[in-house]
Each structure stands twice: as structure tokens, then as C-alpha cells.
């Protein structure tokens, strides 16, 4: 049986040793080369005798990180990719939670690594790739690994501001990737143009789908999303045919009316997740590329990446929202009310998920784990863990799930319960508004609409509000932005945006 991610990876290496595995701006490496590097790093780590322990990775975005990740797996440990651009305070917090057995780093981060507290082995990436591969040692480690052992941890911000490390097992990844590659027919001819950073759950999808099937994982440099012509050149040069991006990245093309000037030539599939996809963006893409597959994917890091999906099969108006669709194969979804009873179609409730995509919990955080990974409230006949997503959803008449917003962003205003998403979609259809975010100021009970666009639009927005929204949902104030602050993943940073607005 294929127990671990490495079994799938090695099958790929055997079938397609000369296929491009990973590429970045500078160069590309084959599956064969990738494996050699990973085994060398794996040997270097394994010499220190740790098993199932965290290995932190502090490296720049580029082709070397996947080798370090696989190296950690070869050593029988699990990895955590740190965001080298995040403030040192946050990195230290994560390091405190982890107390890793080793840190793999590139020499430019030497000073930061030297300042980390605690006992851990320092592994210089370049040096470790020169380690003589010890096949006997690696084989021995492999024989001890279980599919239920952790493969990696991804840290999410957590509403309290203290990061939580979602722990994902080999089995989680295998189950999840099995759905993804079958659903979207990923094979050795697929070339991913990857946008998402490797410390973000979306990156798991295109990275491991590649490693399981022999596809190419082309890492797009972050700055190309500021200079879009470069982006298209990169995509055409590497023959990218599949992308899985956050909506803001897809929206960049819309903002610049990019396809009027240049177009990606090889695209076949466009998937998106991570935040609500404005239909206006989708319609722009469809205008230039009507025959591509478009899919809206949905899920939290705690379900490996995704638990529901919708393949776009009909037209939507700019003012409508896309459904998040149906459960992925091997994933079970429930919509519960506050008392833990299933609600009927059309009624809003919280989304719960069960099945093999669901993570084991948060690393060294039993309290938080027990809060959200709970026994299925429908029965007590045998242990069945369900994950409480904190997302509010409802089923539409077609039986598709619709995303309504976060439970913790739900606004209670003038006695009404309001989902900010409903207000936002009304405005994001307005010509000249790129994105809209509704902020609620609980201090004075006022709704504020922040939008990306010209400040002269405010009157148009007021008219729109009167036309489309009931009185209690109309914003009291409008704030124009050239561009919203985005977090490292490219998503709108709602917390920072709220702070900026409330401090004005």
C-alpha cells in the first residue's frame, strides 16, 4: 500500500524522472534531481535521530523549498514552512510553539536563525544538499512511518492573534489529493502556474497534485502580480495550463484590463479559493476565455485545503455570488444550527465537515483542538470527529451550498442579523468598484463600506444602496481606497482594513 506522500512521489519519479518537477524564475529542476536533493537533505536531518518532530524551513520562495519539504518527510519528520517576510515577532511565536528538532535555512537567514531560542539542529540548505545519501537509513525510517503520522503543519492567524498550527497527516494529503486529481483530471501534462506561498494551505493542492501525477509546478514570482505583462510572459514561456489562485490575483488582470494587451496562450483550467470570488472578475475572464474550466473551491486549512467545490456551469450576473457547491468526494458536510441540529434547505447554519481530509488538530494546543474538532452532534454511537468551520452557509434550490460569511464577522445591527457578504456583493457590481468590504463599527453601531475605486463614486454607491439594499443594510459611510491591504497570501487583510478605517 502507498502509505505516505513519499510513496506517491517516488512512483512519479520512476515514471517521469526527466519531467520538470519545479520551476522558478531562474531555473527548472526535474523529478530525478528533486528526489536526489530531497534524499540528501533527508539524510542530513535523519543523522540527528528525530522522528515525527517538527522541522522548520526558513527559505525564500523558490525551487529549493519543495526539496527541503520533501527532505523533512524523508527524515521521518514533518515540516513547517515559515514566512520569511513576516515580522520576526510572529516567527518567534511559531518557533516557541514548535520547538523544532531542526531548522533548514538559506545562508541569508543565518542571523535570524542564530537569534532563535531553544535547542535545535541548524541545517544550511546548500550544504545539506551535498550530503551523501544514506539509502539504508532512509529505508529504515520509511518502514516505521504510518499514513497517520504528521506530514506538515500550517499556521493560521487565529482570531485571538495567537497562531495555531494545523497538523496535517500523510493520509489527509493522500485522501485530499486523490479527490483533486480525479475531479480536475490532473496528469503529467499539467503545468501549474502557482501563485500561493508555501506556508498557505492552498499551495498544498498544486504542489502535491504535481508530485502525485508528474505535473510541473511553476512558481510565479510574487512581484509579477504587480507587473502583469511579465506574468503573462512567464505563463507563456513555461506553457502554464492550470492555475489555482486567490481571487485578488485573478482580479489583477481585470484591474489593468490586461487581456486587451496580452493573453496567456495555454490556459485550460482556472480554479480559485481563499476568499469570495467577485463574479465581475469571473465574467471578465470568461469574456476573453469562454471555454476554460472555472471552479470555485472552498474549505479551511483544517480540511487540508478544500471540502466543497463548484464547477461553473451557468451564467452569473456581476451582482450575484457563486455557490461553493457540493462536497468533495470522500468529504461529508453538515449544516447545523446553534443547537447542533441539521437545518433544512434554504436555512442558514454553520458548516461542519467530517472525513479523511479533516486534520488531526492543532499542534500543542489541546484546548483549541477540542473546541472545534468535536464529536458529531447527531449521534454518540461511535467516535466520529467533525470540524466546526465557523463558516455560515445555506443550501440553495439546486442543492448547492452558498457561503454567507464568517460566524465571527456576523453583524448584529438594529436588531437584524446581517452577513457582510450580502452587502459587499451589492456594491462589487458597480462599475468602477474593484472590491468592496463592509466593516461594522460596534462602538457606534455603524456600517462602513470600504471599496477599491475612485472617491467620486460615493454618490453612485448611495443610489445603489437605496436600489438594492433594505434600509438597515445600507452603509452609513463610504471609504475609497486605491488598493486594499492584502496579507502575505494575497487575500484582503480585513483586520488591518478595519483598523485603518476605525483609526481615521
Amino acid at each position, binding site marked *: 500500500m502507498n502509505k505516505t506522500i513519499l510513496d506517491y512521489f517516488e512512483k512519479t519519479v520512476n515514471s517521469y524522472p526527466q519531467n520538470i518537477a519545479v520551476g522558478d524564475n531562474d531555473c527548472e529542476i526535474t523529478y530525478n534531481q528533486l528526489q536526489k536533493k530531497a534524499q540528501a537533505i533527508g539524510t542530513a536531518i535523519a543523522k540527528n535521530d528525530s522522528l515525527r518532530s517538527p522541522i522548520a524551513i526558513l527559505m525564500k520562495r523558490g525551487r529549493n523549498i519543495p526539496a527541503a519539504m520533501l527532505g523533512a518527510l524523508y527524515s521521518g519528520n514533518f515540516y513547517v514552512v515559515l514566512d520569511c517576510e513576516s515580522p520576526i515577532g510572529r516567527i518567534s511565536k511559531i518557533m516557541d510553539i514548535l520547538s523544532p528538532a531542526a531548522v533548514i535555512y538559506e545562508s541569508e537567514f543565518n542571523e535570524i536563525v542564530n537569534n532563535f531560542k531553544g535547542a535545535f539542529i541548524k541545517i544550511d540548505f546548500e550544504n545539506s544538499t551535498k550530503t551523501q545519501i544514506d539509502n539504508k537509513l532512509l529505508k529504515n525510517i520509511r518502514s516505521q512511518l504510518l499514513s497517520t503520522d504528521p506530514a506538515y503543519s500550517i499556521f493560521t492567524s487565529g482570531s485571538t492573534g495567537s497562531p495555531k498550527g494545523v497538523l496535517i497527516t500523510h493520509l489527509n494529503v493522500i485522501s485530499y489529493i486523490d479527490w483533486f486529481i480525479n475531479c480536475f483530471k490532473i496528469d503529467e501534462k499539467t503545468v501549474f502556474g502557482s501563485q500561493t506561498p508555501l506556508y498557505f494551505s492552498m499551495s498544498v493542492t498544486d504542489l502535491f497534485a504535481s508530485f502525485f501525477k508528474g505535473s510541473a509546478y511553476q512558481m510565479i514570482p510574487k512581484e509579477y502580480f504587480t507587473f502583469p505583462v511579465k506574468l503573462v510572459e512567464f505563463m507563456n514561456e513555461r506553457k502554464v495550463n492550470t492555475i489555482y489562485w486567490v481571487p485578488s490575483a485573478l482580479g489583477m488582470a481585470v484591474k489593468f484590463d490586461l487581456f486587451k*494587451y496580452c493573453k496567456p496562450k495555454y490556459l485550460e483550467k482556472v480554479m480559485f479559493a481563499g476568499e469570495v470570488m467577485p463574479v465581475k472578475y469571473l465574467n471578465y475572464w470568461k469574456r476573453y476565455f469562454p471555454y476554460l474550466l472555472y471552479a470555485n473551491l472552498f474549505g479551511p486549512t483544517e480540511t487540508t485545503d478544500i471540502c466543497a467545490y463548484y464547477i461553473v456551469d451557468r451564467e452569473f450576473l456581476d451582482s450575484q455570488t457563486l455557490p461553493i457547491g457540493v462536497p468533495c468526494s470522500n468529504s461529508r458536510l453538515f449544516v447545523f444550527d446553534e443547537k447542533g441540529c441539521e437545518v433544512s434547505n434554504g436555512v442558514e447554519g454553520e458548516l461542519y465537515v467530517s472525513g479523511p481530509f479533516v486534520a488531526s488538530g492543532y499542534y500543542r494546543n489541546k484546548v483549541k483542538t477540542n473546541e472545534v474538532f468535536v464529536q458529531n452532534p447527531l449521534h454518540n454511537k461511535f467516535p466520529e470527529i467533525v470540524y466546526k468551520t465557523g463558516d455560515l452557509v445555506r443550501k440553495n434550490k439546486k442543492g448547492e451550498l452558498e457561503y454567507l460569511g464568517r460566524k465571527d464577522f456576523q453583524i448584529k445591527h438594529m436588531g437584524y442579523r446581517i452577513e457582510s457578504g450580502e452587502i459587499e456583493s451589492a456594491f462589487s457590481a458597480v462599475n468602477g468598484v474593484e472590491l468592496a468590504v463592509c466593516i461594522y463599527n460596534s462602538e457606534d453601531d455603524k456600517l462602513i463600506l470600504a471599496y477599491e475605486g475612485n472617491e467620486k463614486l460615493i454618490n453612485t454607491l448611495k443610489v445603489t444602496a437605496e436600489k438594492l439594499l433594505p434600509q438597515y443594510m445600507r452603509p452609513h459611510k463610504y471609504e475609497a481606497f*486605491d*488598493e486594499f491591504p492584502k496579507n502575505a497570501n494575497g487575500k484582503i487583510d480585513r483586520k488591518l482594513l478595519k483598523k485603518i478605517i476605525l483609526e481615521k
Partner: protein
Amino acid sequence: MERIYEILSTIKPGVDYENAENLVDGKILTSLNIARLVAMLNDEFDIEITPIHLIPENFNSVKSIYKLVTMLDGE
């Protein structure tokens, strides 16, 4: 040219714009800064900076920004 200095200083103060030649490549300006800069240049000089002009080389120094603006203004 003066106006470009002013705009840059409102977007990101505290940079030695007179001597800087790697505003983009040196990661001095973030993508957010550049988006704001483009919007302000478009407004101020009544030009349209299209994706074709949106390349790092045009934004690395005040001189190159000025060159871009004059070129587009003449069109």
C-alpha cells in the same frame, strides 16, 4: 519632476528618492505603493499607464518615472 517627488513622498515618506535607482528591484516600493503611484500619476497628469508600461524598469527611479510620464503625456 517636483510633483513626482511629492507624490512619492506622500505614498512612502523617508526615502532618498533623488538618489534611489532600485525602487522596485530593491523592494523599496511595495505592490500596494506602486498601485497607488499609478493611480495618482494617472490622475495628476491625466495620462493612462497601461499594463504595457507597467514594468519594473519604468519605476526604479524618479528619472524613469518622469520619462514615462512625459512620454505618455505627449501621446
